[in-house]
Each structure stands twice: as structure tokens, then as C-alpha cells.
């Protein structure tokens, strides 16, 4: 990633009007260098004030900086510049979800669904919002597009609470914290939970695919060392801490937490997620 950032920086230095600032800002954001990312995005915005992607980048950086209001405003600007921008609706829905404004979040996510009915991340996010609305006892106006009063595309396969149960399996444990949890089967397919990044992208399937087989690798390594069965794997990255633990039938529980979260606490949360997943599997989940 450092090489990529260096290359993009050099390219931008050679041509300050180049749109490469978008890639550079995103690379810095993903690497956790938020102050630098913000600087790059703001400079880019000075040159390209009416570029929707510039405001989109600024919004994502703002989310990472915990500035949800600013992120919302930037995505609102994106929506005005590019009315069919899917990411803006998803982002605004995400911000409202984080703020506990589930009915409003549903409105924006429904708009996103209307723009692209096949986007799985939108379907997942909508399902999460509807779980929250049902938990809160609010009808949530499922089926309307709120301010525009048009019909939304129904997410029929996710309309019953029973179907949604797998999505909210870890909600009670992860709610309010800067962490997320997933249950993967032996082939890396997601069985329960969600893995939504701060900019509203659901990367559960990508993570699942990459992690398929990690149980086998861990077990083999431990067998060669005579250290017994593996009980957890913790990976610290530039931006977060990921911890996982094996389940029966080579399934895997995975959590991703903020880097600021103490490692000991990460393991406590992981243990609770394992307990929850075990109970769910025992009851026939998945």
C-alpha cells in the first residue's frame, strides 16, 4: 500500500489537476492516514468543486473521522450533483442508521434499492434497518419511498423476522461498539451476521471467500507444532483488529473491531460471539 501511495503522490505532483487525487485520498483513508486523506480530498475539491466523487471521498473520510453530520452533508451534495449516485444513498442510509434514525435510514436505502435492486449490500442494509424498526416496535413504513411517495422494490425474501434472524445474530453483542461479527461455514460462505464497512459497503462475502480454508491452515500448523487444537486467530491491521475462532463442522466466527479497542476486550467479545453462534447452530440455524 505504501508503494501505491508513493506512486499516486508522485503522479499528483506531476499533474495537480489529475483526478488521481481520488485514488490517493482513498488509499490514504484505507491506510488509516485520515488527516492526510482529508488534505488530499480538500485540495482535490478546490479544483473539482462540482465533482460528485470528490464529495463522496470527503464523506467517506468524514465517516472514518467520526464526523457523521459532515459525511451526511457531503453525500447530500453528491446526491444533488449526481441524482442517480447509489453510494450517496447508501452512505446517507448508513449515517442515519448509526444515528439510530432507522425510519429515515430506510427511506434512503429504499431509494438506493430502487436505483439498483440487485445490489446485495443495499438489500442487507435494508434488512438490518427493518430488524431495528421491528425491534423498536415501529412499522417503519415498509413499502414507501418516504419523501417521494413512490413504491419501493420489495425485498420479499427478507420480509419476515425469521429470515432476518441470521443477519442480526450478533447485534446484541456488537450494538453500540465499533465492531462487527460474522459466522462463516467451512467453505467461506456467510451463514449469519453482517460485515458492513464504515462507508456502508457490505464486504461479508469478500471476507468469507478470503478466509475459506483458514481453519484447515491453522489446524495443520498447530498439528506440526504439537500445540493442540487452535482456539483463536487474531490479526492486527493498519485500520482494525480481526479475530476469529473455530466452530463445529469447520465453521468460523469472525469479528472486526476498531484498532482502538484493547486486544483483551476483542477476545472477550469474540468469546461471546462464539457462545451465541454455538447456541444458534444447536437450535438448527443455518
Amino acid at each position, binding site marked *: 500500500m505504501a508503494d501505491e501511495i508513493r506512486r499516486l503522490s508522485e503522479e499528483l505532483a506531476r499533474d495537480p489537476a489529475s483526478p488521481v487525487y481520488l485514488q490517493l485520498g482513498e488509499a490514504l483513508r484505507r491506510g488509516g492516514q485520515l488527516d492526510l486523506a482529508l488534505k488530499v480530498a480538500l485540495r482535490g475539491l478546490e479544483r473539482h468543486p462540482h465533482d460528485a466523487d470528490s464529495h463522496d471521498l470527503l464523506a467517506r473520510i468524514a465517516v472514518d473521522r467520526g464526523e457523521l453530520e459532515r459525511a451526511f452533508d457531503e453525500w447530500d451534495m453528491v446526491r444533488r450533483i449526481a441524482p442517480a449516485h447509489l453510494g450517496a444513498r447508501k452512505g446517507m442510509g448508513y449515517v442515519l442508521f448509526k444515528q439510530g434514525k432507522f425510519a429515515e435510514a430506510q427511506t434512503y436505502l429504499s431509494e438506493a434499492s430502487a436505483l439498483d435492486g440487485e445490489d446485495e449490500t443495499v438489500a442487507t442494509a435494508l434488512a438490518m434497518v427493518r430488524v431495528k424498526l421491528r425491534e423498536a416496535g415501529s412499522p417503519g413504513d415498509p413499502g414507501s419511498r418516504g419523501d417521494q411517495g413512490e413504491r419501493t422494490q420489495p425485498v420479499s425474501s427478507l420480509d419476515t423476522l425469521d429470515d432476518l434472524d441470521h443477519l442480526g445474530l450478533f447485534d446484541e453483542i456488537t450494538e453500540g461498539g465499533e465492531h462487527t461479527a460474522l459466522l462463516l461455514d467451512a467453505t467461506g460462505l456467510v451463514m449469519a451476521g453482517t460485515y458492513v464497512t464504515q462507508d456502508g459497503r457490505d464486504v461479508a462475502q469478500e471476507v468469507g471467500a478470503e478466509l475459506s480454508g483458514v481453519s484447515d491452515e491453522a489446524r495443520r500448523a*498447530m498439528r*506440526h507444532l504439537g500445540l493442540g487444537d487452535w482456539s*483463536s486467530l487474531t490479526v492486527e*491491521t493498519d485500520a482494525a483488529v480481526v479475530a476469529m475462532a473455530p466452530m463445529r463442522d469447520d465453521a468460523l466466527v469472525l469479528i472486526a473491531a476498531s484498532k482502538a479497542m484493547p486486544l483483551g476486550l476483542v477476545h472477550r467479545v469474540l468469546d461471546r460471539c462464539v457462545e451465541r453462534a454455538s447456541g444458534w447452530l444447536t437450535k438448527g440455524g443455518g
Partner: protein
Amino acid sequence: MKTNLTPIISSLTRQRGVRGSLLVDETDGVIIVATLHVGMKGPAFAALAASLYRKARLSADAAGLGGVTFLRLRATEGHMCAAGKNEMVLVVVADARANIGLIRMEMLKALERLVI
């Protein structure tokens, strides 16, 4: 063969509970330098550790989490820790009583000192 890397690796092996330390090429899983207690299957373990580290790195990348700075595999009777730099992986194997917090700190320091 003694190299200038050996003292760095050996200092890790002297930590309480550590059974062995290895510096491994992440791409092919071959040992660059190692100090292991008798009985440890170095080459096989190096290959598995490198593969596991690589899989974790790809996963983190897929999730947009950036580079991997430290990895710890906990088992019923011990731990394996790994940290990477420039396509090399520093690996430590320790028993269950080892102080992983201290080993983690020493590994990250050692990684800073490693120059190839």
C-alpha cells in the same frame, strides 16, 4: 549459518516460554533464518506459518483494512505469533504460559531492526 539476523532472532527465542523463532519468506515459505528448540519441524512449520500469514493479509486487504501488522494464533497448548515486513514474516512459537503481550512488543521491535 550465522548471519547478522541471527542475534535478533535469538533474542526472541530467549523470551520466557518461546520454543523457537523464524524469519520466513512469505512468498515461498522458505526459512531465511531460525533458532529452534530441538524437535521442532522448522521447514514444514515455516511453510504453514507463511501461508497462514498470507491468507490473513489477503483477507485484510479484501476487507479494506490495510496491511497486517501482527497475527496471533492461540491453541490449547501454546501460541504462534507472526509479524511481516517486505514480504518476510517473523514467526515465534511459544507455549501456553508465555507472556504474549511482551513477545508481541519484542517482535514488533525486532521487525524494526530487521534490514535485508
